[in-house]
């Protein structure tokens, strides 16, 4: 993949010629570095598909500011070092007006400093809070954070009068960060974490940890924060042990794959999900309904598969970038950055974005995650 794109990139840079920024017939240059292969490919692959498809669509509809959009893309294979190299190339050589990418938190954080120094607007597709906290002048992001997922879960527990929770999480990056955030925000909802168990991401059985949690009479609900196959095993072990207290999962399992792996054991499991996952069953007046259906239909028509929440992050990033450039009326980096920061009431597929100088993500739990319960092998919305 990389071998093919390199000469093309060099050629493209040579043909474009370096100066002449901002001329009317000059394309709007959007650059991307994504983890479309390697261990994070399940995140990066739908993001690449999404950007490729919708950049084409934007061009068919007349481009941005009457100019064509030119999309330059590199695959960083999920390696932070590569991500940094490609970010540098996108800024210096490809003269990108704005960069969308950084599939993983590692890839994003490796490149953040370059965008800050070179003053190029950057919209990250990575989940962790550290991307926008503390706020970095040139860095924005579209995915929800694990902190918000924890808040959403605890808010649901609070509504049901649950105050004592048994936490079980994986020791991988996602689980460890989720565990930390969950412990951090539990207080806000009057919730006490009375058990705190972990397992390693490759484990094939968590019965021992769950037996421990079951043995604690105080535990009123179990919260499993992790992604991948492990939560499906936790869910199966939980069902086999016949634990009679409710099980919550995080947004990390919000995929059809989880339903398939966990099977009937997943009945009754509650979790926060990106609106796009439940687009079909969202009420018509839901602000995420229309953008989600647009995205879903276009993506499915092109790739004949259902897009994931991860592709949705890229869709939102692209649409927010286009919106900001249109409002700025120019591709001048300072003007685009200011326009990004003043994005407000923007109905994306991930949620409604309201960016401010203090908040470069712009999502809150009211407008992003939806709580669902798994019923009859599929998602069903929990009414507040």
């Amino acid at each position: 993949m990389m071998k093919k794109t390199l000469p093309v990139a060099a050629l493209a840079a040579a043909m474009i010629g370096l100066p002449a920024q901002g001329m009317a017939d000059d394309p709007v240059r959007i650059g991307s570095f994504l983890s479309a292969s390697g261990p994070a490919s399940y995140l990066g692959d739908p993001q690449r598909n999404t950007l490729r498809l919708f950049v084409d669509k934007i061009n068919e509809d007349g481009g941005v500011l009457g100019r064509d959009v030119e999309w330059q893309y590199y695959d960083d294979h999920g390696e932070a070092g590569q991500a940094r190299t490609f970010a540098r190339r996108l800024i210096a050589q490809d003269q990108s007006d704005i960069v969308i990418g950084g599939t993983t938190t590692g890839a994003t954080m490796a490149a953040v400093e370059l965008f800050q120094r070179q003053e190029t607007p950057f919209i990250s597709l990575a989940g962790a809070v550290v991307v926008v906290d503390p706020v970095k002048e040139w860095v924005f992001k579209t995915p929800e954070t694990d902190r918000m997922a924890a808040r959403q879960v605890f808010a649901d527990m609070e509504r049901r009068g649950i105050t004592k929770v048994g936490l079980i999480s994986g020791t991988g990056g996602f689980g460890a960060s989720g565990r930390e955030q969950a412990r951090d925000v539990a207080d806000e909802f009057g919730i006490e974490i009375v058990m705190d168990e972990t397992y390693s991401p490759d484990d094939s059985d968590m019965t021992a940890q769950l037996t421990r949690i079951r043995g604690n009479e105080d535990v009123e609900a179990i919260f499993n924060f992790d992604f991948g196959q492990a939560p499906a095993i936790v869910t199966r072990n939980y069902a086999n042990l016949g634990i009679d207290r409710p099980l919550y999962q995080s947004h990390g399992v919000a995929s059809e794959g989880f339903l398939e792996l966990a099977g009937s054991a997943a009945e009754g499991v509650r979790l926060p999900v990106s609106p796009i996952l439940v687009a079909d069953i969202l009420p018509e007046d839901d602000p995420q309904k229309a953008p989600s259906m647009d995205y879903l239909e276009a993506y499915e028509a092109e790739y004949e598969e259902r897009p994931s929440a991860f592709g949705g992050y890229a869709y939102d990033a692209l649409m927010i970038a286009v919106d900001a450039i249109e409002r700025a009326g120019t591709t001048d980096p300072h003007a685009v950055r200011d326009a990004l920061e003043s994005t407000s009431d923007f109905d994306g597929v991930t949620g409604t974005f309201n960016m401010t100088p203090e908040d470069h993500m712009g999502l809150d739990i009211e407008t992003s995650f939806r709580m669902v319960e798994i019923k009859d092998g599929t998602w069903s919305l929990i009414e507040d």
Partner: protein
Amino acid sequence: MGEFLQYLVTGITIGSTFALVALGFCLVYNASHVINFAQGDFVMVGGMSAVFIMAAGVPMALALLLAVGIGGLTGVLLYKGGIQPAKNADAIQLIIITVGAALFLRGVAQVLWGTGYFSMPGFTGDAPIRFLGVVMVPQSLWVIGVTVAIVVALGLFFTRTRLGKAVLATSYNSDAAKLMGIDTSVVLLVSFGLAGALGAVAGVIMTPITFTHYEMGVMLGLKGFVAAVLGGLGSFVGAVAGGLILGITEAMMAGYISSDYKDAVAFVLILLILFFMPSGLFGQRGVERV
């Protein structure tokens, strides 16, 4: 008490999966003194093949048989394509070839089947069995039962059949074996084929419990290797004992102390064994041939 039994049952189930991988290590080691680091990936090949053959609409029993056949074929191909062409190489070089083969298998699996996780239903349903406050899935009984059956079958193969004895003879001294009229390349071919099939059996019986994906062989291979060394490399009974000790210790650790330290158990155990009993629990004391 209920908790203790639960940890024990959990440990035995996990331990049996380690034992199955350890048996594969022993099989190849006995024939060639090679540690086959692709053993964990044979397990992956078996599990993945079974899932995808079933997805193509083939009945379960036939799909399982085909998957085991594919595993055996993979073992044969590893021998034909990697080990045989380098037949005069040292054991250490052959071991490195198996590491390369493992990476190759993972790559092929990723291209063929993607990076997702897959499962399949238990052979005799998924309804949990409950007794004395302990819960287990019926598939656990399959895992334990098949492990026992394989140990017995391997024992008979090596002591009661000409081919099995030929494998042992080749393992002790391949030059002498050749002089006695044993075709050592056939012996090695059979060993790798059996190890592949054995790995695939492990893969198909554990997939309903552990799921399968293209990289499942990495951690499983490592734990299986620890189990094999723990029991004494080459000893089948030792491999099973090593697997069970490892699985039960891990479960007890996670249950009574802290799950944070669970994964350290395997590595602490192997250090202790190498310090105090270098030939493992059931291994023969090394006698240097002069």
